[in-house]
């Protein structure tokens, strides 16, 4: 219990300190930080619309966070969630515009499966090469990210380009679009958020309750001992990368099916990289990842509101940087926190 409180308190205090530091920056540009933070909070949670917006932003972040976090638990550093996410959406988008004839009950899971399979396959290349030749997954996944960028660019300006010629795929069939949970104005909260939470639960159960999860963790912690215990390291490295990639692919495909309904050239916009910090802030724990994603998602959403009072979007990036820094070096905060407690 005490540990639990500390686990919550540390990130919260980190955010607080980050906000205090940033307040000085905002003061320095001649704006009122309290007003600005009011806007930030309001923009993230102040209205139904704001909350929907925050949840929309949080959804893919949870999934990329899970993807990277799963990799870490399995002893691989999947820096390629970025590419896998785009690949998942790209492949799913290429086929899902033809699913008009299918009922949603078929089209939705099918599209999701295709997206996940694409992400999984793309990541499994890195897994396979690591298992077979020892090629470092950080290298191969970075290379695959770049490759994805150019393939995506090729696809949206060529084979997938829509009639008017804008670089985006045609809209996917309505039957393959995720059902909408809530609609306020033009903003639609799709059931993607439920999928991402289910994915977190899946990850928790998979890692903690199943024999496959046991094996994947064993390989991640100590491949020699795993092999000794009859666990195939090669198979599990590929599997771990594939599952991590599938989660990233799912991030892409929920964006596709729930938000944009088509593939846009630069779909991910860095969410794969955000997944790294989200996974680590959430300590590779599914529940932690959900909250970390919510934190980043809310900062993003609220920041747009701040722009209305002339605080540039860069301030928010700086705030994010400081928050992430303090959460990573959590001992800074722990030290402050403990000192406070001793004094009290």
């Amino acid at each position, binding site marked *: 219990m005490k540990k639990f409180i500390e686990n919550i308190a540390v990130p919260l205090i980190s955010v607080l300190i980050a906000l205090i530091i940033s307040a000085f920056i905002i003061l320095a540009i001649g704006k009122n930080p309290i007003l600005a933070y009011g806007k930030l909070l309001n923009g993230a949670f102040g209205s139904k*619309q704001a909350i929907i*917006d925050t949840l*929309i*932003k949080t959804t893919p972040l949870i999934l990329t966070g899970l993807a990277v976090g799963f990799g870490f638990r399995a002893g691989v550093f999947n820096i390629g969630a970025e590419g896998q996410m785009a690949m998942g959406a790209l492949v799913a988008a290429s086929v899902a515009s033809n699913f008009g004839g299918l009922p949603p009950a078929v089209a939705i899971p099918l599209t999701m499966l295709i997206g996940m399979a694409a992400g999984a396959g793309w990541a499994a290349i890195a897994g396979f090469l690591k298992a077979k030749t020892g090629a470092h997954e950080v290298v191969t996944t970075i290379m695959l990210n770049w490759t994805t*960028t*150019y393939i995506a*660019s090729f696809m949206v*300006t060529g084979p997938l380009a829509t009639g*008017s*010629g*804008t*670089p*985006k795929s045609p809209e996917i069939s309505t039957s393959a679009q995720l059902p909408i949970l809530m609609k306020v*104005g*033009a*903003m639609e909260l799709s059931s993607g958020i439920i999928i991402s939470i289910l994915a977190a639960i899946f990850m928790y159960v998979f890692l903690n309750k199943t024999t496959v999860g046991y094996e994947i963790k064993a390989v991640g912690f100590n491949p020699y001992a795993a092999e000794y215990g009859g666990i195939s390291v090669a198979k599990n490295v590929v599997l771990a990368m594939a599952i991590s990639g599938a989660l990233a692919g799912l991030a892409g495909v929920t*964006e596709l099916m729930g*938000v*944009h*309904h*088509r593939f*846009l*050239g*630069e*779909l991910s*916009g*860095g*969410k794969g990289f955000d997944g790294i910090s989200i996974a680590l802030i959430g300590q590779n724990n599914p529940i932690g990842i959900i909250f970390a994603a919510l934190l980043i998602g809310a900062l*993003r*959403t609220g*920041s*747009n*509101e701040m*722009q*209305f009072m002339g605080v*540039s*979007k860069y301030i928010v990036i700086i705030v994010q940087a400081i928050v992430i820094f303090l959460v990573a070096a959590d001992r800074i905060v722990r030290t402050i926190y403990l000192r406070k407690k001793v004094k009290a």
Partner: protein
Amino acid sequence: AIMVTDTGGLGDKSFNDGTWAGVQRAAKELGVEAKVIMSQEQSDYIPNLTKAAEEVSKEKDGGIVFAVGFMMQDALEKVAKQYPSVYFAGIDIEFGKELPNVINFLFKEQESAFLVGYVAAAMTRTGKVGFIGGIPIPPVERFRYGYEAGIKAYQDLHGKKITVIKGYTNEFSDPKKGKDLANSQFSQGADIIFAAAGACGNGVIEAAKERSEKLAGKGLDNIKKYALSGKALYYAIGVDVDQDYMAPGVVLTSAMKGVDTAGYYGVTWAFKGQFKGGLKTLGLKENGVRMSEMKYTKDIIDKLAPNVLKELEYLKGLIIEGKITVPDSEDALKAFTVKGVKLPK
């Protein structure tokens, strides 16, 4: 008036900056407030447009929301339908079915590119000119069609054989990549390169500048003296805005796209009650696209390619009159010819 940028944001020296300049100019004249929101990712478009629409609908004297960049097409369509009483303007955005409260501004980039292509064709010594695009998206490609068409026109009219070498940086924000690609094209024999590649184009200009300065020395005077003496140099051609100033004498000219015009008129119409929804395509005729005035290079061009400026004026007239249709697709480009045109003596 509120402008929502695409993920490129302000500072792109292209449609975001251009529109913003126009919006600000009009806002100042009218004494109204202008705001900008920069989108950080694709899923910001709908919420940002929504917020902008909410703000604007609260204003007593009304206003207008600008959505800048073709990526915002879906978002603009959705939000505009939700707020039928708010005026919207889309830059580079085309709808399948027009909405009464949205003006869609499109540009005939190909028309200005045609003119700069014609200049390039006239000025090349090596018979090879380059084109560097960002990502081959429609506005970039329209620049290329026009450029190639201009070159073709010159070939048809003057019988000079010119080849175009083409490459893409596949992004818009890495000047070094533009420079590398430019150097590749120069090393393959090109001596003039037209870049429609956002900030990558800065690298293209720099590559031309570096090469020319090495031959002629630094500064406009040296460049001019060297060029006027009839010796060959390397040149770049700018895009979107007047980039001639970036390397005086080295940037031959720029193919400009008048997004500022769109920004200016959008705001003015909205506040003066002259707003009318629908597609507005701006070309040479509407002064929506144009060629830079060649402040630094006019003498050089005049000296090395006499008549070409006069010919340009004539061709521009033909385009405005609709006697020449500059191609805006690959097929049209293939079919394009000016064989029927007779240049005035």
